């Protein structure tokens, strides 16, 4: 039987294609793993960065599921290995855990949507996705417009309080990184001329807390 096409098959060129393709893939894996990932805040249900990266197939379902548009797609800037994985951006929305912290029966919609368990079932009452920190350079209360108490007023978990000087301070033990303070923080509305990427109060990954502040 003749077989005219057969492109890939059994030819020297096909063999080279196979070897080169395989080598490129292994090199990509090694390179991406070596380059590592920026510290981005992950959606709830992320047990660890490693476990999320191991299971995430970048299918985009969690982003679509988020009722508050808090989940965005990580770009190459967040690290090649993180590209197209989900991260949280509290400029557009915030995380209320879809009521899972209050109601035992429910769970976050992103976790429900995740087909691979990259976002997994957790004991939601204790779930922490990050921690808020205050940037004195950006925070309105810390700079010339003292008296802003938006984050203190809006925090659903009473994790931001005013210190003796009337300045907001985050209680890292009470904060779970839901991002509502960052979502509501008016620093960019009032003083975005500084060109800063983040607001007066913003959420970072818990493990990166020390390094980021």
């Amino acid at each position, binding site marked *: 039987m003749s077989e005219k096409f057969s492109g890939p098959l059994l030819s020297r060129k096909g063999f080279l294609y196979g070897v080169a393709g395989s080598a490129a*893939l*292994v090199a990509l894996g090694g390179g991406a793993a070596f380059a590592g990932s920026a510290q981005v805040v992950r959606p709830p249900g992320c047990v660890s960065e490693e476990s999320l990266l191991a299971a995430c197939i970048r299918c985009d379902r969690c982003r679509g*599921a988020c009722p508050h548009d808090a989940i965005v797609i990580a770009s190459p800037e967040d690290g090649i290995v993180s590209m197209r994985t989900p991260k949280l951006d509290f400029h557009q929305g915030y995380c209320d855990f879809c009521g899972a912290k209050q109601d035992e029966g429910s769970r976050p919609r992103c976790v429900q949507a995740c087909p691979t368990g990259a976002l997994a079932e957790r004991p939601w009452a204790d779930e922490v996705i990050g921690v808020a920190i205050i940037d004195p350079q950006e925070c309105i209360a810390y700079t010339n417009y003292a008296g802003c108490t938006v984050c203190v007023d809006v925090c659903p978990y009473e994790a931001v309080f005013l210190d003796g000087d009337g300045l907001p301070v985050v209680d890292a033990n009470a904060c779970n990184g839901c991002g509502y303070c960052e979502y509501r923080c008016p620093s960019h509305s009032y003083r975005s001329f500084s060109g800063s990427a983040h607001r007066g109060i913003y959420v970072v990954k818990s493990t990166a807390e020390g390094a980021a502040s």
Partner: protein
Amino acid sequence: MKKLIVRRITPLIGIALVIGGLLFHVSTGTLSSFGWEDIAYLCPLGALETLLATKSFIPRVVIAFVVVLVVCFALGRVFCGWVCPVPPIARFFGGRRRRVRREAEEREAGCAHQGSNGSHALGESHEAEAPAALDGIAANVASCASGGSGASGGPGADVAPAADAAPCDSAAPAATGGCGEFGAPGASSGAAAKRPRFRPDSRHGVLAAALLSSLVFGFPVFCLVCPVGLTLGLVLALWFLFTAAEVNLSLLVIPVVLVVELVVLRHWCQRLCPLGALMSLLSLPNRSVRPSVDAKKCLRMNGSHCDACVGVCAEGLDPHTSERMNDCTKCAQCQRVCPGGAISFPLLAKRSGRNERNARGPRGVQGAQAEQGAQGARSAWGTCSSRDAQGAQGAHAHAEENGENHD
């Protein structure tokens, strides 16, 4: 015709899923995984990579994989032919380039009327691996010679069919030097020899590398560069560019990777795609919806040298045999171009193996006779359905556009 229109539309399903999800704010997902709430389809390669990378048993992933297994059993590689958005993109770029080159060749050869032929269509790949393929059966001599690729004599002129050197047959399994590298059985003993149903090729190497690298590096490596995922990722990136003025490196990185994969490295689907390789493996037990040739209508079985179905098949399959038929994407191009209307895709073949025997008859046993009759038969056939015939004759992937344009 209806099938062609449907097949033109179905690859848009993935893009429609993404845009629909964005518009209506639901998590229908992408082709990597789509579904509703807990019930979801999952890319089988992603599923395997995830299981290997996490080194754990994830029931939901395994269930999704079993679902794909069942679909492949019933419908074969239907995803590649009907749903995947990559082949149309690759065809769009690859087809245009091949068309340009073919036209140049035709001008050079001064025979614009001849259509193109197999070795030209695949270009350097075939010419490089070519010399003197000794297939047990003389096939395609007529079409090779008339396509101007330099077969020595006229069709059937002076060489015994059984030892004919046919450049078009360069990739025939029994003849290619490279087959030993993969340890595939040579099956050179002639027409009646049992052919292996499956032969590993470069795609399977990439598949193995994808799984191995996921295991070693602990994340699904291939998902990073999967053109299916990247295509839909690009749709998303463009959506956010226009709706939220979101500018990031994805807008640069994704197109570059896609261009490298689909335009620079040609034949992505046939040579490299590990997802296609996995689907073809999962489709090994598939016996339904396979092309079936009606021996009464088939021109080849009646002594002509028609290879329209073989020429048009993007996977290089021959509907007359069951060889590598797990690679069939059910695209039904062979059915469309068949000048005799001999090919159908029955849900279940009536009797398996029958096609194969018949197909080998005229070529193997009555080969010489067929050779001699070939020229006349071919030209007669050529005049009656010349448009389709020349569009399809021996041209491979690009014959598809060629033929479709004629509609």
